């Protein structure tokens, strides 16, 4: 993960700021644009580095406390680096009734981490989600954008093996 501070020969800092400037320019003058701005900035790194937030605060003349308040309110925003692949195991009602908990346990066992954590090699971040609306396929989990349904604990290793 490159952060704003990492000054490499190619001029990492400026490149970063240019990307954020592009995002800010897109929302220039739009009311209530803070959340979409943060969503796009997060897309650059999969998380929100502190320096990026400070830069957004400075450029949009928004107090950093306000930004921090918004970031910590919504579950989609992350302040720490995340893995290359994001696993979201559904713990919604339909999945709960059909054994979603066993799926979560199987993934936790396979990766050796608990929900909310990232593997040491940054390959996976494991999260739970309240419902992805694919209840017909319960229990389900999403890896990046792919939805895997009708799961049983024994198919988990094979699914995870597909993501490097």
């Amino acid at each position, binding site marked *: 993960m490159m952060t704003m501070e990492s000054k490499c020969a190619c001029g990492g800092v400026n490149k970063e700021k240019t990307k954020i400037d592009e995002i800010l320019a897109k929302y220039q003058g739009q009311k209530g644009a803070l959340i979409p701005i943060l969503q796009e900035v997060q897309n650059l790194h999969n998380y929100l580095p502190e320096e990026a937030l400070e830069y957004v605060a400075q450029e949009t003349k928004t107090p950093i406390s306000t930004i921090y308040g*918004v970031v910590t*309110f919504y579950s*989609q925003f992350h302040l720490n680096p995340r893995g290359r692949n994001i696993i979201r195991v559904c713990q919604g009602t339909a999945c709960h009734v059909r054994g979603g908990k066993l799926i979560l346990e199987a993934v936790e066992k396979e990766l050796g981490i608990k929900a909310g954590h990232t593997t040491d090699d940054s390959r996976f971040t494991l999260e739970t989600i309240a419902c992805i609306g694919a209840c*017909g396929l319960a229990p389900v989990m999403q890896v990046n954008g792919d939805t895997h349904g009708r799961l049983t604990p024994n198919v988990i290793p094979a699914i995870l093996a597909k993501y490097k």
Partner: protein
Amino acid sequence: MIPEKHIRTDVLVCGGTGCKSAGSAEVIEAFKREVAKKGLEDEVAVVQTGCHGFCEHGPLVIVYPEGTFYCQVTAADVPEIVETHLYKGRIVERLLYREPITHESVPKYSEIGFYKKQERRVLANCGAINPEDINEYIAVGGYEGLMKALTTMTREEVVEEVKKSGLRGRGGAGFPTGLKWGFCKASLGKKKYIICNADEGDPGAFMDRSVLEGDPHKILEGMAIGAYAIGADEGYIYVRAEYPLAIKRLKIAIAQAEKTGFLGENIFGTGFSFTLHIKEGAGAFVCGEETALMASIEGRRGMPRPRPPFPAVAGLWGKPTNINNVETWANVPLIIAKGSEWYTACGTPTSRGTKIFALTGKINNTGLAEVPMGITMREIIYDIGGGIVGGKKFKAVQIGGPSGGCLPESMLDLPVDYDSLIAAGAMMGSGGLVVMDEDTCMVDVAKFFLNFTQSESCGKCTPCREGTKRMLEILTRITEGQGREGDIELLEELAGNIKASALCGLGQTAPNPVLSTLKYFRNEYEAHIKEKRCPAGACAKLANYVITDACKGCGLCARNCPVGAISGKIKEKHVIDQEICIKCGACMTNCPFKAITKG
């Protein structure tokens, strides 16, 4: 569906989220490839549609004009369908749907039990048209309602027509839509907003997602009619970020509608202008509450505020605002195009029209069912839902998500409408129906929902923030065998206080799952507390694992036991020491002979 060439057959492949994750994209590719191989491109059209609602059996393929319904189709099945059905005209028997009870195969879409008792009005186009093509929506009568409203009706007449239809909010509370519009219309001020609440956060509900994905123009049309009626020129659709396909299809739909002139400046040359924006949520259940949703659109923490003032007076950026949910908006074009008289012919006197339910849990036919209001729960679960998986015994149905309640078997003949459900201690909510069988523990279910509302509580008001936490603690200790005498009464007292004093709907309804399970399944709570026993065998800490005579003495369980609670000689029956056992279930999972039971 597609006007050019001389198409004799349409192959409709479902492209909803359920079927997509089951592999429908590969099925579409395979159809296109095989059809081309046979040189049938000029006769056969392969169309990707929205959700048919029968997600359990996806990917779904329907061949018209015959209406042949194939289910669980994989790309490998496609050459056979093309060869046998499209080329030789014979049905591929093995891919037909079979009724769960009779095991008879049903060739026609319209004759399947799941669809027979449904009244698909809002969902009529879902699965029948290509949601990414505005012309298909127009071809089935789309935007006629908007045209009628703008060119032949006054704003007052539109509001009046919606009032007469008796439409009530489909998002949960069931407030009369026409009345809501009337308030907003009467509010002073030039600038007004319209919002579509597509933050479908209730776990177990996915009807809004299906409508957005399968028939997005219906929402745009409904909102444009509403905007005209109340005098708004700008609107927002607030969609949860977990629905990427819905967001994509809405964006396409808005662009097409703007190009065609159904959105934007001077629509139909009437001088009425309406622009529509999409706002993606960022993951907060409470944003389904209207004042929290507006705070989120404004770019702030999505916390509710006290009402009044109601949004109709001071909403988004302090301007009069009208918010309705997706399914409510989807009803509007039908009411205007076909008239309130047509609309009121369906349903009960206090709950008009249809309601879409998401059937999930231990039921044979999971999926979406649109039924006339007033149908009984029994008809939904047994006739449409096909009964309980594995012929097990029905125990309860949870309706209305985290705000709703659990109804027992004795309530199955209850007519499903807003008022009967409230009287029974549940609520319509967004329409999630989670069916539970004898293996489901009702205390655990109550704990599940409270855990959800607790973690989604925004923390602004004390009753919700602290009260739900205390309730969850009590429920947790009950399910772990630490329940105390007086816990039930304490839960009831806390529930009453939270209901009466929480700031918004999330807190006010959070105790409902506990109260309704206490009302109908009190004995299960008592068994947990007094006998330290879970009658359903679902609470891990209360379950005793026992090795039966099926044990071959392989020793695998003893090796997998993390606390060394299992002993026995090789080739002889092993025993579990209940004092040491931590009820983790590792032995049961690892036993190759299914010789370990839980009870």
